[in-house]
């Protein structure tokens, strides 16, 4: 089969965007037909060998998620609800390569004998998926469900809740989705980029997947570049690439930047001295950053990191589903303290108060929104600690003078 030996990377466009157009003919010209008949055990072994990890944020190994999904009337969900306001990579993928995502969804659905397949994405993306579904010969029964444009709408339990009840709010979940998810059935939920990679692993194998990236972070990743960049761009980069390399792919000169927010609003800042470290959890451990959902938000030299961060913490507070008390009250309290620091209020205990509130909300919600928001605050106070001290004495180095 010539399709199986075709290597999309030789087309020079990376792995995921090798098709010239989003239609089925272009898709099959680039990648060949979808190989059917993967058994659960064979796919499990191939995914394990590939080292593919989730691209939605948590970075959980794809094979372990599959292994944790019980048999019987299983449900597979392709999650394309990015939530993150500066993330656009999933929308880009659904627009330009919908068949790759559908291939992944159908392949893993076949392997676990799933009875229901869902694709959950925002209203902007669904028409492209619907068009792709209509032209497929395998006519997969995929239910398309619209995700609201809200930060927490893509959280796993919020997705299941949205599919069941139409309300995209997180739920307390004593059981794992793999055991009891959608309507109590075993549920496998993957980010759409993860499914697109899975489709390629199913075609070309684990060794091919590992031919890009590093042993620690095999394959490629999509990054959404935003913030102080000439063009907001989605780029595909090999795993283990440094921040500087990924920025360069997007036409950004890293030397113009003071820091980059890595992973998303639940992520962490990496200052300029970390730009040559690999974009992996291990590489960025000293900053507590992981590639997460692939967000890289740039902060230009000369801009105040605390001002930028205060806006994000306020956004996170306003994104609370207001279901859990510690999140509903704690996040706005935390945001107010960070805003007071950013504004240059000369109150010495503000930094320790922000740390205390971040510690207080951690682990105390039905979902990880308080944890992620707290992580961002810890990161802000650590990476911009000199700036915090300057602000607490009434000055801001970015504004070159007194804030008041």
């Amino acid at each position: 089969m010539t399709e199986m030996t075709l290597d999309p990377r030789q087309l020079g466009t990376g792995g995921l965007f090798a098709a010239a157009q989003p239609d089925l003919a272009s898709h099959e010209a680039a990648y060949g037909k979808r190989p059917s008949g993967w058994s659960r055990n064979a796919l499990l072994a191939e995914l394990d060998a590939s080292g593919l990890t989730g691209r939605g944020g948590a970075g959980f190994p794809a094979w372990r998620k599959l292994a944790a999904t019980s048999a019987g009337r299983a449900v597979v969900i392709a999650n394309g609800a990015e939530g993150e306001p500066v993330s656009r990579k999933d929308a880009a993928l659904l627009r330009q390569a919908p068949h790759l995502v559908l291939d992944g969804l159908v392949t893993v659905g076949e392997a676990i004998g799933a009875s229901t397949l869902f694709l959950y994405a925002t209203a902007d993306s669904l028409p492209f998926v619907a068009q792709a579904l209509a032209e497929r010969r395998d006519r997969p029964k995929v239910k398309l469900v619209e995700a609201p444009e809200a930060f927490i709408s893509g959280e796993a339990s919020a997705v299941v809740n949205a599919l069941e009840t139409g309300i995209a709010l997180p739920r307390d979940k004593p059981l794992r989705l793999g055991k009891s998810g959608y309507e109590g059935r075993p549920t496998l939920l993957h980010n759409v980029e993860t499914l697109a990679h899975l489709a390629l692993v199913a075609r070309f194998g684990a060794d091919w997947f590992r031919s890009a990236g590093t042993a620690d972070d095999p394959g490629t990743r999509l990054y959404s570049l935003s913030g102080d960049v000439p063009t907001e761009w989605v780029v595909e980069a090999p795993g283990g690439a440094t921040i500087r390399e990924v920025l360069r792919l997007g036409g950004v000169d890293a030397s113009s930047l003071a820091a980059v927010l890595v992973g998303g609003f639940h992520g962490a800042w990496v200052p300029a001295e970390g730009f040559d470290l690999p974009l992996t959890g291990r590489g960025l451990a000293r900053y507590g950053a992981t590639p997460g959902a692939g967000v890289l938000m740039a902060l230009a030299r000369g801009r105040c990191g605390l001002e930028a961060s205060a806006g994000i913490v306020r956004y996170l507070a306003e994104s609370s589903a207001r279901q859990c008390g510690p999140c509903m009250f704690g996040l706005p309290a935390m945001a107010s303290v960070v805003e007071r620091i950013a504004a240059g209020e000369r109150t010495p205990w503000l930094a320790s108060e922000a740390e205390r509130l971040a510690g207080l909300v951690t682990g105390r919600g039905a979902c990880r929104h308080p944890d992620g928001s707290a992580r961002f605050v810890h990161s802000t106070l650590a990476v911009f600690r000199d700036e915090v001290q300057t602000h607490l004495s009434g000055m801001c180095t970015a504004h070159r003078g007194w804030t008041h």
Partner: protein
Amino acid sequence: MDALSRAQLELHIDFARCDGRGLCTELLPELLVRDDWGYPVGRGGRDVRVPEPLATAAQDAVDLCPLQALMLRRVTRA
């Protein structure tokens, strides 16, 4: 010893249900205090380890929570 008896007793707080009435913090002052807004807080976020001598008090807290926001369970942690 079987796996169940070796497993740690844990009090799970469903913060989506909890309304901060505070009954649990009165029944289990050894494990729970109230945070700035009146919600229970213990070591370990929403999963609070329960030593065996406090198992009965913890069960009382579960049974008496007016919002049914507490659950007592045994978990094995790696």
